[in-house]
């Protein structure tokens, strides 16, 4: 099940709906660069529940048709130039949601349920603009009780970076349970990992509790510092200088092309 980064990127077809986690949960920037190198097109990104530099760079590289999430944020490095330009000129479809609705839609897919219901949201303008949600009457209440019905989102593939895989193809994600939900709610998962261990993760109950079994996984690439230049959990720190460099270069399409040439197609990044 261990494959190379470029093999991993080849498993994501053009037009695929890809689920990616928020920055705190382990972003596979290595897979992101591999997708840009294979010139992926028309991707539908689902940021679970938000996304950041990963989606900004995929948008900058022209890989994205639709961006569906609750936010796109570079944190202290906001605003994201390619995303904001795409929003303004309408060059990508934006589906704005709210974090718990994204989680609920992914979890509905994980359960094979047609839709989930949620409290809240009613009164937010995102509801009027969302192409998929419906407000329905709670069938268990005889008085007026509108609830938001949120159809399942089943991505074609979940893509993320995790600390550890074993040689049987199981991956440890620890307390980042949304990664388990994303993988099980998607048709498959493609994962880059910091380390590979010879011990089977499921044979140790402490590790098993935080392990995604191989059944749900379509490929694993061993890739140290796979989140660079983003932080990774409590380990790898964010490379703020590099993100500032991206920001300074990415002000316009020409600058973005130059950045990608140097740091994605070229030798300027660790993966």
């Amino acid at each position, binding site marked *: 099940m261990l494959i190379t980064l470029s093999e991993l990127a080849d498993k994501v077809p053009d037009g695929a709906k890809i689920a990616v986690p928020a920055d705190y949960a382990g972003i596979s920037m290595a897979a992101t660069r591999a997708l840009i190198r294979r010139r992926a097109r028309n991707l539908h990104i689902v940021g679970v529940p*938000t996304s950041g530099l990963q989606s900004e760079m995929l948008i900058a590289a022209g890989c994205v048709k639709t961006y569906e999430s*609750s936010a*796109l944020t570079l944190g202290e490095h906001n605003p994201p130039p390619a*995303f904001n330009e795409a929003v*303004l000129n309408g060059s990508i479809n934006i589906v704005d949601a*709210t*974090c718990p609705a994204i989680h609920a839609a992914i979890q509905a897919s994980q359960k094979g349920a047609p839709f989930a219901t949620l409290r809240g949201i009613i009164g*937010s303008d995102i*509801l009027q603009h969302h192409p998929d949600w419906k407000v329905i009457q709670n069938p268990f209440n005889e008085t007026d009780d509108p609830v938001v019905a949120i159809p399942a989102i089943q991505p074609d593939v979940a893509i993320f970076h995790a600390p550890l895989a074993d040689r049987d193809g199981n991956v440890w994600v620890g307390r980042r349970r949304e990664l388990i939900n994303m993988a099980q709610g998607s048709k498959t998962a493609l994962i880059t990992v910091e380390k590979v261990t010879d011990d089977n993760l499921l044979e140790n109950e402490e590790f098993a509790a935080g392990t995604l079994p191989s059944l749900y996984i379509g490929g694993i690439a061993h890739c140290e510092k796979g989140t660079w230049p983003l932080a990774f959990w409590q380990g790898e720190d964010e490379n703020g200088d590099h993100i500032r460099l991206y920001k300074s270069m990415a002000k316009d399409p020409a600058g973005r092309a130059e950045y990608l040439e140097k740091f994605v197609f070229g030798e300027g990044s660790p993966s």
Partner: protein
Amino acid sequence: MSDIENRKLLISIIAGLLKDCNHVAVGASSPIPGAAALLAQELWGQPKHLNILGSVKNNFFTNGAQELFDCAAQGRIDAFFLGGGQIDGSANINLMGRGDYPNNKPRWPGTFGSAYLYMLIPKVILFREEHSKRVLVDKVEFISAPGTSDETVYRKGGPYGLLTNKAFFLFDKEKQRFNLQSVHPGSSLEDILDNTGFEFDYLADVPTTPLPSDEVLDVMMTKVAPRLKEVYPQFAEAVLAA
């Protein structure tokens, strides 16, 4: 009043609002609310449970990113903080952007969990340092999360108050208006009226926000700063320990 003194004042005000809470959650990029929650714990042993996004030591969630939202929906989070690029007089907040959606200019990051948490957490404190007509508007251009809802809508939570670097307002749920509670030292009622884009209720002799005591400032420096450092090292050093 220096920026640092002002921020310590904000921390002490927020801390006072959290002392009756069992569980407080603090979102991303929120050093002042984070410091305030830690200060309340140090001063009163409350909130007993605290989740600061980005922290390891002060974050006990183990069920993934959805746990914050599930926990709020279960009624297990007592207080939370929301901001907004625009906040209006009905406590609607806009985290989406200026101009016509979806082609906003500027576009801000997005709604995050606000459309949910604002409806479910009983004490949502609106917090935005900038006090200007640019931010505090008559009507937001996009409602990321509504300040009020009609009675058919399930709503357990909502706005408690609004804190800026100039003043603190309570939100009057009956009147659906803000009510000015106190003006921070260095500002004045006139200054607030000049820089607020929405109408609000106030007394002519509005009180001045009391400064934190030396004891409280000492706890910030000696107890809160070391704990906050884990998540906000620069802020802890530059503001709290100063």
